[in-house]
Structure formats: structure tokens, C-alpha cells
């Protein structure tokens, strides 16, 4: 920059022209204490971040049954492939280790923090501090670490130590592995004989295309000259409108949109051929059907009562429930925050309407 030009520019402009950031830019604004309190809720192993509060095993059992058991089971044993939270002690050297809070997790703070910040699945940040203490107390009890009269609080929290607290060590690959793998590699005659010892084909667990080939196998280019349209990929096949009596009446675009929305529900609810009850009841024929009517599903008390009262899942009733499940039916087991957009609700009801009983 010439001296004459230098005279023309201000000090601030000079600072802008300097990429090395010695001084601050003055961007952003101070965070308010209320904002920090709202967002900085992490709890650390030494108890940093724990709020005032307490909860006992008995209360924890009740809250767990309401908010957690639909996935984790009444005894934290895990339903289907949802995480098992209790037991497994002594299995970490087994071929199939069971990694639970009791057997694997090093810190109780992690349990409290995760419940409070990220659970229940689909309805995070709805657990109060006292409930988090109570659920944590119940999980300690489920793992045989406390008696049933135990009360967990901010005061006694750091007295509790999990069994596997000493079971972790920082990454030691730099000593245990890297020296071994830094040798100049062999280039010729490195092995006398090589044999195939395992074949994935024996397991048959790879997703496949309709022709039985691994999903996504590249289409043949020259097989039929002039007709280069590829076979439909697996995704498209799955997106095809499902067989159902009402399919013809529904707007295909709405049904397709509804299928996308339903991905939020699929964790718990199954539809289509062979659908069974899972964490939630299967939903074939749900539109227009009486509430609480899926055989073999253990509905919540309020849902049973509503069914006895004659509740029918008309599109209007479903829309009300889906917009705010807990508001529509206090005490429902469905731990889902609800669909905020009316168009999503309409779409998912249209989609569900394509599945006959």
C-alpha cells in the first residue's frame, strides 16, 4: 500500500485489510444469563452443572413407566433393539457384551445429562430436573446399585460411582498400533497361499434390488442399445403406492408427502403387509377405526378409557391427536411431540388411509 493511499484510509479500514486477527472484531453480543441458563445445561462428571432437585426410586419407576418404558421396557431391559439400560455386569469380555449403564457407562453425570437433555426420544427437553433425578435413581436401582428407598439429589450425586468408572483409557493407538504399522510394506511374494475364509454372500443380509443383486448395482449400459432406462432402484419400488382399497381415492402427491412425514412415526408404528405391533400399535386400517383396537397392544389407561367412551379415529380426531398428542390425551404413552404443520398432518392421514385393515 502506497504512503499516499495510506493517508486516505482510516485506521479501521487498515484493520479490515489485515487477515491476522490480533484484535477482536466486535461481532456478536454478550450472552444474557437467562440465555446461558437455558442452553448451557451440560452436567459433568464432577457434578458441574447439576441443578437443585431430587428424586426417589419409586417416583422414578412411575416416570420411567410413563416416559421411557415404551422403548426401554418396564425394567430397563430394552424392547426390540432399543437400548438395554440395566444388567450386563461382567459381560464386557464376552463375545456379545451387554453395554448398559451398570456394566459400561463410566459416569452417572452422563445418565442425568442425557435424560435431561435428549430424552424421551422424540420429546426431548420435557423431563424436569426432579424427574431426571428420579429416573436416574430408578436406573441405579435397576442396576442393583442402590436400594429401593434411595433418594438421589444434587447433594449426594457425586457420592455415586458406577462400576466401570475405571474401565476407560485415553486413545493409546500411538503406542499400541502405529509403531507396528509404520514398517515398509512387502511388495512381492508376501504370502505363500491365500484362501477365501469368509463370504458375505453366505449371510444374505445385504439390501437387494428387485433382481436380487446388491441394492444399487450399476445398470447394464450396452445390454439394450437405445433403451438406457435403468431398472427402478429399491427406493423407488418402496415408494410405489401400497396396495389398499382406498388408494384410488387419495391424492397421490399427498400420499407421497405423507409417506415422508410417516418416517417420523416409523420408529414405533408399522404399516403395510405383515405389520405388527411394536413400540406403538400397528396402524393398518387406523383411519376410521375405533381407538385402542389393535389386538394385543397394551394401550395407556387414558387410551383405553377413550376407546370405551367410543372414540373413533376419524381424520378429524387423528388430526387433533397428531397436532398435540399429550394435549389431546393426557397420559398417552405416545412420546411424540406432535406434528406442527397442518399440511403434514393431512398428508400423513392420507398416507395412513391407504392401508386397509
Amino acid at each position, binding site marked *: 500500500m502506497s504512503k499516499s493511499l495510506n493517508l486516505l484510509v482510516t485506521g479501521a479500514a487498515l484493520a479490515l485489510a489485515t487477515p491476522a486477527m490480533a484484535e477482536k472484531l466486535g461481532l456478536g453480543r454478550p*450472552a444474557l444469563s437467562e440465555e446461558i441458563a437455558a442452553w448451557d445445561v451440560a452436567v459433568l462428571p464432577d457434578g458441574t452443572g447439576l441443578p437443585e432437585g431430587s428424586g426417589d426410586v419409586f417416583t422414578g419407576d412411575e416416570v420411567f413407566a410413563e416416559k421411557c418404558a415404551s422403548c426401554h421396557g418396564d425394567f430397563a431391559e430394552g424392547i426390540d433393539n432399543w437400548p438395554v439400560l440395566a444388567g450386563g455386569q461382567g459381560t464386557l469380555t464376552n463375545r456379545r457384551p451387554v453395554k448398559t449403564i451398570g456394566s459400561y457407562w463410566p459416569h452417572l453425570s452422563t445418565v442425568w445429562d442425557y435424560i435431561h437433555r435428549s430424552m424421551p426420544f422424540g420429546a426431548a427437553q420435557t423431563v424436569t430436573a426432579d424427574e431426571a433425578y428420579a429416573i436416574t435413581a430408578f436406573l441405579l436401582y435397576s442396576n442393583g446399585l442402590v436400594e429401593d428407598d434411595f433418594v438421589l439429589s444434587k447433594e449426594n450425586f457425586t457420592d455415586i460411582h458406577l462400576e466401570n468408572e475405571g474401565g476407560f483409557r485415553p486413545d493409546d493407538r500411538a503406542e499400541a498400533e502405529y509403531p507396528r504399522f509404520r514398517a515398509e510394506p512387502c*511388495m512381492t511374494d508376501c504370502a505363500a497361499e491365500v484362501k477365501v475364509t469368509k463370504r458375505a454372500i453366505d449371510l444374505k443380509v445385504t439390501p437387494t434390488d428387485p433382481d436380487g443383486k446388491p441394492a444399487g*448395482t450399476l445398470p447394464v449400459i450396452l445390454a439394450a442399445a437405445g433403451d438406457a432406462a435403468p431398472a427402478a432402484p429399491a427406493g423407488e419400488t418402496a415408494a410405489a403406492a401400497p396396495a389398499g382399497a382406498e388408494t384410488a381415492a387419495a391424492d397421490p402427491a399427498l400420499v407421497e408427502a405423507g409417506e415422508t412425514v410417516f418416517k417420523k412415526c416409523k420408529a414405533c408404528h408399522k404399516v403395510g403387509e405383515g405389520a405388527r405391533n411394536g413400540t406403538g400399535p400397528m396402524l393398518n386400517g387406523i383411519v376410521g377405526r375405533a381407538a385402542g383396537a389393535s389386538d394385543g397392544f397394551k394401550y395407556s389407561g387414558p387410551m383405553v378409557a377413550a376407546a370405551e367412551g367410543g372414540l373413533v379415529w376419524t381424520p378429524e380426531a387423528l388430526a387433533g391427536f397428531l397436532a398435540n398428542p399429550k394435549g389431546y390425551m393426557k397420559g398417552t404413552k405416545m412420546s411424540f411431540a406432535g406434528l406442527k404443520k397442518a399440511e403434514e398432518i393431512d398428508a400423513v392421514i392420507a398416507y395412513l388411509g391407504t392401508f386397509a385393515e
Partner: protein
Amino acid sequence: MSETGNKGTSRRAVLGAGLAAGGALAAGAVRAQTPDPLITEVQDWASSFGDPVDATPYGLPIRFESHVVRRNVEWLTESPVSSINFTPIHALEGTITPQGCAFERHHSGAIELSKSDYRLMIDGLVDQPLVFTYEDLARFPRTVMTAFCECAANGGMEWGGAQLEGCQFTQGMIHNMEYTGVPLRLLLEEAGVKPDGKWIYAEGADASSNGRSMPLEKAMDDVLVAFFANGEALRKEHGYPVRLVVPGFEGNMWVKWLRRIGVYDQAVESREETSKYTDLMNDGTARKWTWVMDAKSVITSPSPQAPIRHGKGPLVITGLAWSGHGKIDRVDVSVDGGRNWQTARLSGDVKSKALTRFHLDIDWDGSEMLLQSRAMDETGYVQPTKDQLRAIRGLNNVYHNNAIQTWWVHADGEVENVEVA
């Protein structure tokens, strides 16, 4: 090379040494018997109009490429909102992964967060806790960098044995993008890190929060608070409007929808860095803080989803190599299950902590092959075999499988995922 070629050992040796096949035709190439109507007849597309410029304001790939999509493996997880899908690396070339088919891992679904609703907080052991809007971030000096993002569990299903048919499923939890963003260092300096601040903890705005701790040293080194990928805004599923880019470190630490950076004197030891993303060893103890992704490579074609359909003759072997420790130095390829190796070409730029493309052009004699690739990085680390890793780590590891992959190419060109010994 323009000769139409006699097959023979001398010619094979030349091709096998890694020279480009150029325009050479394979021995026995089909000679046209009748004129090709695609050439002799005027085709529709050569006579009438194509699409006008206002037909496609933002384009998707042409329909003939509809197989090049992310796929998931349903039995892997209980819920598709806390799950993973896989990049179709068998169908891609070069090194940059398009955002639209780059693998996704969500712990509570991909959320929709607008720039106007976006806030980033920096708090904890800082002189002045700050809140930034998206507009604020956009006024900090920017950096451009290319980096691979690999899930720590990439290949985890293969740890016990060959399991899935195709590199999309066995190595596809990876993508490589060119990011533009603000060095995290600048944001931390703006807040002023106190002397006892040794760790940062990054959290997302989604329901899972997916908080992860990392040493301040890394945060001040090459971590980027990114808002562009491959020249455009981040896609929703990649953390729009702002994500963390943590070069060389496992993908779980690349927090999406970045909401808060806390500065601490210790690791938070969140769920994602204790119960998950830790490596259980043979003796029942576990490694934690295994952040760096070690050197790895895979042949993307031929592979089970990309069989050889042209018969013997010139064959392009292509693949990807990468290392979280720096640049790829060399990639060797074996066609006989690791008995003999030849060095492949590294094609294009070799960038630190980014995907590197390698090619090896051979004259395939039509006999079966056990194809392997072996990456070396600039630290001298050589990609190990699965057995070498198992000997150290045991059978209960899920994460950080960077072992050599074997593809069994049959004489008919079909390819299987196998293990050899």
C-alpha cells in the same frame, strides 16, 4: 498407444506397470458388422429441441443416474430418525461427494433450522460469553478447506467377518466436501478463552444435541464453523445452516446445526463419548477419545455393486484413500489377495485429511482376482489387515475399522465381498 494390440505378456506387463491404456482397443474388440443406427439415423435429440433454460432452476441428476442414491440398511437400527445411510461411492468418481448423495447420520432426525432462527452461543470459561447470529458469522474472515467426514462406525458391521455386498455399505459412511466457513479459533478468540479453558464442548440444536468434547488445541488448530459445502449452502441433512468441520476426526464430532460451544477445564463425558464412540477391547477395558481416523482405502470399482461387464482386456481399477493424520503418500493394489502388490496412480490433487482418488489400469486376463488396496499416509502408517487389527483389539470393537478390503472378482466379472487368510 494406438495399436489395436496383440495380447501378450509384454503388453500386459506395460499396462500392469500402471501406464494409461490410452485409446488402445482390447484384443478381440467387437468389430461392427452392421452400421449402428445411433450413428446412421438422425436421432430425435439431434433434430428437435431439448429443455429450455427455464425448465430446471435447480437441477437433479438425469434420470438415467437414479441408482446413484444414498441407501440404508434397515436392520441396522430400530428407528430411521436415529440411523445412518451410505454414500454410493461405487458409482462416484473423483473426490468430491455431492451433498445430495453424501451419507447422513442423525441421532434425532434432520431438523429444519432457518438462518434467521439460527443462534450460536459461546460460553463457559471465556472472558465474555457471546451470542452470534448467522449474519454475525458471515462477517468473520473465511477459510476454504476440503475434508473427509467418516463415521467412526464405517465398516463396523464387517469387523466380525465379511457381511455386506458392496462398498456403499462396507465403506460408504464417508463423504468429502469443500467447505467454506470461519475458523473456530476466531470465534473463541472473540470470546476470549480463559487460561484454565482446556476443552471445548460442541452441541447441536436438534433434540439429540449430540454433544462432543475435544481438546482446545484441536479447536484452535483446523476446526471450521462451516456454512457452505461444495460451493452452496449446507443441505438440511448436513447441518444447515451451520455445522462443525473437524478434519481428520471421526464424523460424530462434526456437530450439525451447531448451537453452542462451551469452554471447559475437562471433557464433558457426554453419552456420545462414553457409552458410544468408545472402543471395547479384548480385556474388557475400553479406549476413549479415539478421535483420529487412521489411513484407509477401498477399491470402489470393480466392487460388488460395480461388476466388470466388458470381459477381459483393459480394466480401470479405481478407488479412494484417506487419512486423518494428513496426506496419502501411496496406494498399492493387489490382484492376488495380498501376495503381490503394485503401486497405483494418485489422480488429481492430494490434500491433507481429504479423500484421494487412485487409479490402476490393467489388462485383465479374465481370470479371477482377489482385489485389495493398501493406503500409506505421510506419517509412514500402512493400512493394516483386519486380522492385524483384531490381534490388538479383539472382536468386540465396533468403531475404527480401517482394515484392507478384499473383493473376489470372478471370471464372469461378478464381485463378492470376502475375507482372506
